[in-house]
């Protein structure tokens, strides 16, 4: 096994801050690893914590949730609810034995293209360290 493990990471981004921040990273031609793929939602408040679970089950090696800094939420307070929900989802996953490096949450504003790059690099690095997620990945089902 000389080939390096390339993790597959699913990220949920809010439309107004983090998705725009990632767009800015693009327009500024920042470079970062391609392991992370983004699903756009309108607000972090929309992200059902069970999506994290679902992503891990469906083959993601790591998950990132990113939204607006406190006070910046386009919908005023969606990120506040998300902060609570994901803190506890993270606690629960870790308690059951899922490495704390698999799931991350970040605040990235529309102006933080540079921070987005750093966040992606950190998440990719950490998930690369722990290797593929096998714990409760869904078994291939042949209908």
């Amino acid at each position, binding site marked *: 096994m000389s080939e390096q493990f390339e993790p597959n990471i699913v990220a949920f981004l809010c439309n107004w801050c983090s998705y725009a921040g990632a767009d800015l990273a693009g327009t500024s031609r920042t470079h970062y690893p391609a392991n992370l793929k983004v699903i756009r939602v309108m607000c972090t408040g929309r992200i059902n914590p069970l999506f994290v679970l679902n992503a891990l089950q469906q083959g993601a090696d790591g998950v990132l949730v990113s939204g607006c800094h406190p006070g910046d939420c386009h919908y005023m307070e969606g990120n506040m609810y998300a902060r609570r929900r994901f803190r506890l989802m993270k606690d629960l996953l870790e308690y059951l034995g899922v490495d704390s490096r698999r799931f991350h949450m970040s605040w990235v504003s529309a102006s933080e293209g540079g921070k987005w790059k750093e966040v992606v690099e950190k998440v990719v690095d950490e998930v690369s360290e722990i290797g593929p997620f096998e*714990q*409760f990945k869904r078994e291939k089902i042949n209908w």
Partner: protein
Amino acid sequence: MVDLETIRKKAKEIVSREDVKHLIGWRKGTFGYRVTPYWVEAPEDAEELVYSPLCNTNLATSLTLAEKLPLPKGQEPDRRKTALLVRGCDSRAVVQLLTERGVDREQVVLLGLPCRGVVDLRKLKDSYPEDNEVADAEWKEDKIVLNVSGEKKEIPREEVLDDHCLVCRYPNPVEADETLGEKVEPWAEESHPGVEELENASFDKRWDFWEKEFERCIRCYACRNACPMCYCEDCILDRLNPTWIYRSNNYSENTAFHIARAFHLVGRCVSCGACERVCPAGIPLGKINQKLVKEVREKYEFEPGTDPEGVPFQASYNPQDQEDFIL
């Protein structure tokens, strides 16, 4: 504490009221230590009520389980109240349901009972096996007295009480229209047995533990049905579009089921332990719930089922909520 005759007398009185439909309590089951929820529809039924350390179901569940069958056109729904025997944990479940509008306070009559904890039947299994004979138990100060086939055995409470009851801080009802008997002095400090042990283990060790537990799950959903908080008529975990969890019984789907179940109870679990007691596979579900109860209390200073006027935890936030985990 309280004697059975007082309860039965009071129950009779309540059921006789015109505005009360029925009273939900417990009665003896058909064999062994089993005790089952019991709907007292008429005053004379009250004679069958029991109240003992064997009453291990949370009666608040019965409130939300009541099915609303379609009514023939023109027929008015029965608007009479439901009466309920409540101990600390039952009443906390009712209070939590009040905050979630699952119950209308005007529609329930709560008859409070102090409680010294219920027996975990699995702890009795080896030393005091159950047979087809109907057996009995009662509290006697710090002991539990078992009465199996006429033979009485006194056992220290600590040996046979359910883990949840050992650390119960709410032995008396937090909400009731009337509470019978004398209040019980709480006996426990806040603690979450078994949780810290796992917290101190490595991720791999934790997963080794849970993987074995979840592998045994037969997905009978008894935990879900026994829980007073799991009251969705159509659980998302049963749905096909979208399919959150496949029906296949394997550790992946089982784990996902247990994570989803526990997560839905964040800030709602009242620590009654009903889920764990009914689990036929003996999965320590309380250990998952207790972890979240602990986090919610430590990080957010929230205790479900204690404030009928409170805003549900999952529907609130504090601008100062901690965020040290956020990048």
